[in-house]
């Protein structure tokens, strides 16, 4: 936890048990539900009238939906970074953040899968992937790897939750009847015996090892959806590493934002301390530098060679139609975070929250820039096509569905935090005890 003061176990339990929504929580949840409903209505219109309600046409056939998909897959990778990589590296300070990271991973990956179905236009044809799918196609790999990653993340969320379920069942008076029933259904069998802990720890260790290659695969395969297509801006052998580094960055940014919000909303200052922000700040700086390095690789080399086909694409990004968005994404998503977070004062909670938000917003625009401008610059010139084919700006239905999916991710996280402890109670108690005994 980072502070030397010993907190009694019962106080930890009291502090970390799920709390009812306050006024702000109700307003927040209502806004999210309304946004989801607007997205659902827009999707109804898309189903009713077809993909023509979007502004996607022959050239830009992957618009804001696929940008959102890549963004969600990217953000979900943080589960493997915080939970698995740091755990295997025997880093203990990240314990209070593991569940935040895992629920971000699960909710993001669920909506990544949903947004792909939204993009299909004819969702009933999704079944054809199972019936007629070709293992040669990267789309097939994506479906396999997303479902696998979702399942592993779910298990990684569930196994460490078992001891906390026992604590919540024991604190029956502090919970509602239906939640008590839910806890009993999910974890009444957990008695906390030595053998149960042994099996559970073993399972968590296996999952931590397993999730790393799967997480790398999920985003590498997503990058291959682009890189296996011969297009200016996508024709790169570097795309897998480029996507993974960006994914870790945006995921860490999201965790920082969530840390700040949960810390403020649930008064968790004793558990999510300034030390956590400081360490996460250093992680974000490292990942920003890494992602910046890959960005330089991705743009400098094609710009140095300036092949005719790449020229227009790069000009549009650097000085043309997309230049404002491009430089915004680079500055806000990488450069400014590096310069702010290298100073200790920049790694305090509030600056970290602002920087975390900037990283997430910058990352969303970066995904948009990876998808759309390339589609507008095909190798063969656009001739004899309607004017609307030559430009792309999402329709209100696309914006509403994208906003609805983002609200959906936040809603899952919000409800999870209402039902389950967002910081592992049992692990916090155990670590504090071990820390005390060691000292």
């Amino acid at each position, binding site marked *: 936890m980072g502070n030397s003061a010993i907190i009694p176990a019962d106080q930890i339990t009291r502090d970390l048990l799920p709390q009812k929504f306050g006024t702000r929580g109700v307003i927040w949840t209502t806004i999210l539900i309304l946004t989801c409903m607007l997205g659902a209505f827009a999707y109804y219109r898309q189903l009713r009238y077809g993909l023509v309600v979007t502004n996607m046409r022959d050239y830009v056939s992957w618009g804001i939906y696929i940008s959102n998909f890549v963004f969600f897959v990217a953000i979900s990778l943080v589960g493997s970074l915080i939970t698995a990589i740091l755990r295997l590296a025997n880093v203990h300070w990240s314990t209070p953040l593991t569940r935040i990271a895992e629920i971000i991973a699960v909710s993001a990956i669920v909506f990544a899968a949903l947004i792909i179905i939204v993009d299909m236009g004819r969702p009933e044809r999704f079944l054809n992937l199972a019936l*007629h*799918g*070709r*293992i*040669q196609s990267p789309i097939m*790999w994506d479906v*396999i790897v997303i479902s*696998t990653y979702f*399942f*592993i993340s779910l*298990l990684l969320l569930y*196994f460490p939750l*078992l001891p906390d379920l026992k604590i919540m069942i024991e604190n029956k008076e502090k919970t509602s009847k239906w939640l008590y029933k839910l806890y009993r259904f999910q974890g*009444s*069998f*957990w*008695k906390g*015996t030595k*053998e*149960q802990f042994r*099996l*559970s720890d*073993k*399972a968590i260790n*296996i*999952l931590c090892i*397993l999730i790393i290659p*799967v997480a790398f695969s999920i985003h590498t395969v997503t990058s291959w959806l682009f890189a296996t297509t011969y297009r200016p801006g996508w024709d790169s052998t570097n795309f897998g590493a480029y996507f993974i580094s960006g994914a870790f960055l945006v995921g860490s940014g999201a965790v920082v934002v969530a840390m700040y919000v949960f810390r403020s909303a649930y008064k968790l200052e004793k558990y999510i301390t300034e030390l956590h922000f400081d360490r996460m700040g250093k992680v974000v700086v490292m990942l920003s530098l890494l992602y910046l390095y890959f960005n330089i690789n991705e743009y400098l080399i094609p710009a140095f060679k300036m092949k005719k086909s790449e020229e227009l694409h790069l000009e549009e990004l650097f000085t043309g139609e997309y230049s404002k968005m491009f430089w915004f994404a680079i500055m806000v998503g990488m450069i400014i975070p590096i310069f702010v977070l290298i100073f200790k004062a920049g790694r305090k909670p509030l600056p970290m929250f602002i920087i975390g938000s900037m990283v997430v917003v910058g990352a969303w625009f970066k995904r948009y820039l990876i998808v759309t401008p390339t589609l507008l610059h095909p190798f063969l010139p656009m001739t*004899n096509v*309607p*004017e609307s084919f030559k430009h792309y700006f999402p329709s209100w239905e696309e914006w509403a569905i994208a906003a609805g999916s983002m609200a959906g991710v936040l809603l899952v996280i919000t409800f999870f935090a209402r039902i389950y402890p967002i910081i592992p109670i049992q692990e916090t108690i155990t670590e504090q005890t071990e820390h005390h005994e060691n000292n």
Partner: protein
Amino acid sequence: MKIIKQNILSLLFVFTFLLLPVIKIMAQEDTAAGTPVVKLHYYNNNNSIQYVILESSLKKNKVFTPQKNKSYALFLDQSTPENLIGNILTDNEGKAKVFVPPSLKAAWDAAGTHNFIVKEGEEEIISDYAITKSMLTIDTASEDGVRTITVTAMKWEKNKWIPASDVEMKIGIERQASILSAGTTETYTTDSAGKATVELKRDSLPGDVNGNYTLAARVEDNDLFGNILVEKNVPWGVPTTIDTNFFNIRALWTTRFKTPYWLLFMAYSIVIGIWGTLIYLIVQMVKIAKMGKTP
């Protein structure tokens, strides 16, 4: 005399100087509004399908911009309701296509030369687009390994077909989007007998599965005849063989039934390895659950 001449020159200079802004303003007015340009193109394909394409654009600062959704009425010879070919609306490219309707067959057959008239609202904007009826025929010969193409151009005059001389045309083989010249020059011109003969210089061009390809002769934007096209299929090409074996091998581009073995091995090893481990973990979960239920 010299003084008078100098005065006239000075006056001319002053006059021109004063007039310049006026000319400039007039030019600006013209430029600001733009000048509508409407053109007609007559087409006759294989001596059977006659149609007209109207092209409407706005000329402004030397740039032509297509005029979309503009409506015009097209007439044959006279701008009377009975001679109406059709009311037309331009598309996004400022073009509209209209066929000569069967109801005007009698009028069409009655003369060798026809005038197309275009009206925009009540205003007649084209009245001098005249077309003389014509036809092209294409004949082929093959002697001693030498293949020749003879195209004959005829025009309808004084109630009979007579040879049309000095008609420039492309003669060759139809390829993707144009005509590949059969000989060594781009275009050929008919002689006094209305004939243009070309020796085929293109050997070994691919045809269809039976070795057929299409010969074509095309007259483009001729002042008298418009655009005329005639085509003929000949078995002069090299038969194309379809390599069906291409899809029978195990490769990345084939159907799911022809997946390469190495990919199947890799993909299934990974899937079985990971999902096998996950099933093992589910079993562990069941074990944990059973432990909790045992008293």
